[in-house]
C-alpha cells in the first residue's frame, strides 16, 4: 500500500496545482488536510518531486517576494502537466474500479 501511495504523489500534486499555483509548504499542508493524514510523508520528499516535474516541464516554478518572511517559490501546472494529470487520473480511476470489482465491492463501470 505504501508503494501505491508513493506512486500517486505526482498525481496528487498535479491535481492540487490544477486548482491554483502553490508553494511547497502549502502543497504539503493541503495534501495532509484533504487526505486527513492518509497521504502523510516526510515533507522533504516533496521537493525532489517538484524539481523533477519542473525539469520535465509538468510544472513551472516562479519565485515571489513575501512581505514578512523569506521568498516563496510558487509552482503552477503547465499544459503538458494538465495532459499528464488527465491521463494519470483516468488510469487510476480505471485501476480502482477494476480492483473494487474483483474485491466484490460496489463500483461504477470503468470508462475504458
Amino acid at each position, binding site marked *: 500500500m505504501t508503494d501505491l501511495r508513493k506512486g500517486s504523489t505526482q498525481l496528487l500534486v498535479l491535481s492540487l496545482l490544477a486548482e491554483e499555483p502553490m*508553494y*511547497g*509548504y502549502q502543497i*504539503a*499542508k493541503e495534501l495532509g488536510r484533504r487526505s486527513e493524514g492518509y497521504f502523510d510523508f*516526510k*515533507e*522533504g*520528499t516533496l*521537493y*525532489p518531486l517538484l*524539481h*523533477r516535474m519542473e*525539469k520535465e516541464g509538468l510544472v513551472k516554478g516562479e519565485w515571489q517576494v513575501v512581505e514578512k*518572511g*523569506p*521568498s*516563496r*517559490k510558487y509552482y503552477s501546472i503547465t499544459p503538458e502537466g494538465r495532459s499528464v494529470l488527465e491521463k494519470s487520473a483516468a488510469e487510476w480511476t480505471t485501476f480502482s474500479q477494476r480492483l473494487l470489482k474483483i474485491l466484490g465491492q460496489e463500483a461504477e463501470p470503468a470508462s475504458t
Partner: protein
Amino acid sequence: MRQSSDTKMPSLEEYLGDLACQLHLDTPTKEKIVQEIRSHLVESARGFQKEGYSPEESMALAIARFGEAGKVAKMMRQVYAESANQAVLAALLPVALTMAFKWVILPFLETLGSWQGNPTPVITVSLAFLALLIPGLSMRCWRYGYAAWAFFSLIAIAQM
C-alpha cells in the same frame, strides 16, 4: 501532542549547512534549493509556534517533519544527475566530431585530392573552444560538463 526527544535536533543553519554540503551541485542551483527549503522550514516552524511550542521546539519539529538532510540531498542529487549526464554527453559531442573529422571527412577529402593541408592545430583549438561553450551554455551542471570537456579534449588532442 508535544514530542520529547533525547537526540539533539540541529538548528536551522546546521540543517541547511548539512544539506548544502551533501547536494554536490553547482552553486546557483544549490543556493536556490537551500533557499526554498529554508522558506519551508521557517513557515513550518511558525505553524508549530502558533500551537504553543517554543521557537527551538518548533524548528526541531519542522526539521523532523521535513526529514533527514542526507536523504533529501540524495533524492535531489538523483533529480539533477540526469543534467550531469547530459552535460558530459554535451562535452563529448564536439570531441567526437573532431575525431570523426580526422578519421572520416579528412581521409575522404584527401582521397579526392582537393585538400592536402594540415588542419590539426586550428581544428583542435576551435573545436575545443566549442566544447568549452556547450556544457556551460546549455547545462546547469557546469563542473561535470567542464570535467568531461577537459577529459575528452585531452583524448582528442592525443588522437590528432
